[in-house]
């Protein structure tokens, strides 16, 4: 359904952020993209959704194909018309609008108001917290509340494929569980997911297939359950030792750090 072939992305004509990335997302699948800070995950999403331009970035090589249509460097609003919604990082709600207005804008392509009402109800049943907040000015809501709103707003468009950047960011543990329930629910309703996550455990729990990215390149990929068993993934992404126990943050060894400070 979504295919990236050897995609290269350059910022400001000089910084090469993606260096030939290829991946495939099949319809109905959930594909997770993992990777460290600055690996290029968000860049990949932006390249797909056409929002690179606002940061002076371009897809300088390769192709991105959505359902047979090449969409690299396409206008963001056109990409959405092709059925892909990108939930951006950074909690970009429409701050002066209320939470409900945000949702309505999310559903702006819905043809009639009856359908709109139905979708609103759907969002509110899946995320009751949003129903409580419906008349709040979204700019004043707490970080987690805004994050929820973003997910709800993407659902309103009921896209074929949601590309979502760190959905669990800043959510309380219970809320993460709830959100992932929602994602699972949507997936079972047939939505395809392209998921960028730092919370690898959660991501791998719903993903079918996963890519690991480092330094603008894909370094590993495979079915989600296979990856979850990989030693390195366990150590660096899941935070469990080889023996399967969670390490304590207090026990992180000093010697791993090159230099002590103010010694």
């Amino acid at each position: 359904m979504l295919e990236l072939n050897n995609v290269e992305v350059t910022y400001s004509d000089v910084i090469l952020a993606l260096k030939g990335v290829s991946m495939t997302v099949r319809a109905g699948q959930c594909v997770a993209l993992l990777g460290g800070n600055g690996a290029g995950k968000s860049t990949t999403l932006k390249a797909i959704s056409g929002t690179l331009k606002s940061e002076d970035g371009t897809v300088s090589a390769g192709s991105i194909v959505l359902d047979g249509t090449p969409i690299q460097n396409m206008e963001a609003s056109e990409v959405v018309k092709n059925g892909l919604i990108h939930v951006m990082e950074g909690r970009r709600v429409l701050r002066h609008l209320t939470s409900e207005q945000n949702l309505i804008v999310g559903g702006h392509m819905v043809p009639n108001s009856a359908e709109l009402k139905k979708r609103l109800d759907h969002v509110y049943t899946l995320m009751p917290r949003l129903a409580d907040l419906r008349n709040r000015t979204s700019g004043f809501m707490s970080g987690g509340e805004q994050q929820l709103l973003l997910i709800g707003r993407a659902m309103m468009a009921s896209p074929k494929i949601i590309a979502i950047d760190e959905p669990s960011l800043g959510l309380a543990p219970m809320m993460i569980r709830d959100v992932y329930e929602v994602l699972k629910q949507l997936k079972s309703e047939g939505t395809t997911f392209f998921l960028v996550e730092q919370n690898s455990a959660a991501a791998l729990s719903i993903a079918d297939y996963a890519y690991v990215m480092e330094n603008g390149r894909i370094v590993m990929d495979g079915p989600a359950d296979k990856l979850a068993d990989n030693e390195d993934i366990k150590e660096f992404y899941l935070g469990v030792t080889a023996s399967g126990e969670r390490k304590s943050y207090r026990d992180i060894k000093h010697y791993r750090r090159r230099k002590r400070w103010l010694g």
Partner: protein
Amino acid sequence: MDPSGVFPTSYRSDRRLIRTRWQFLALVVFMALLLLAPYLVSSRIIAILNMMMISAVIAVGLQICTGYAGQINLGQAAFMGVGAYTASILASKTGLTFLLTIPLAGLSAALFGFLFGLTAARIKGFYLALTTIAAQFLFHFAVLNLPSTWLGGSNGITVPPAELFGLRFVSESSQFYLNFAVSAIMVAGAFGIVRSRFGRAFVAVRDDDVAAGIMGINVAATKANAFLIGAFYAGVGGALWAYLIRFVGVDQFTLFHSIFFVAMIIVGGMGSIVGALIGVFIIRIIQEIIATVGPNIADSVSFLGGDIVFAGMNVVLGGVIALFMILEPKGLMHRWNILKSSYRIWPFPY
């Protein structure tokens, strides 16, 4: 600038503006050429350079206020006017030397700017831009309506030439040296300011005034300071202007002049002193070219008629500004910086 692989070895050298011997040499040659200019080029060019240097002082001030501190200011010409009037009155009524009138002109403009800067503590963004337009109108109103013995009212004020040890700065080239000295000091000072903690505070307030406050920066004071400094520059420029034209009248400092100063920093690039200089150069050059070439075109292509050619002035200038915004929205300096960073990493594209 250093090529790929060369890194600074001390914090001082990292801060340095001039990084290589070639840069230093280029600067020296440039300054020397400027200093010798009155002997090298015609007085018409010297007159253009005079205009450019004065505009440069004012535009650099605007750059600090708008480009660095992010406070959109459409009242720079009014601030300039305050400086010009101060210098004129001091020079004509008290006979004070320009060595004092110029800084005093800067200070009085700074005071006026500071008052408007205080509003910036509360009023932000476009709302602020419009209050600076108010500065423009209030200045105009005040000059025309205060008793004419104060500010000359509609009569304007005639300014005696600047004088030092019996030397009168009346010829183009003597004025050139006056303008050169003052503008060199002011531009060098601007580099100092923007690279100091004040420059950083300006940028911080521009980018995110909430975070700036939490970093211990007094946001209101910083904004007022930005206006104060910007207006100080405008005031000094205004004083130079007064000594150049030797007559000040309120219609020399209109909103349109302010808009042109903004245009200069737009073309050169926001948030860069060098950008402001480039912008001044480009806009002034275009103005001069059209003013010079215009009559010739009108003469030789008579069917066009004079008015067409001259109305073209605004079209060309406005067009250039619009074109710059469309092609290079971040200004010429941005393009230059990109070139620089490609050079820094060449030949490795990543």
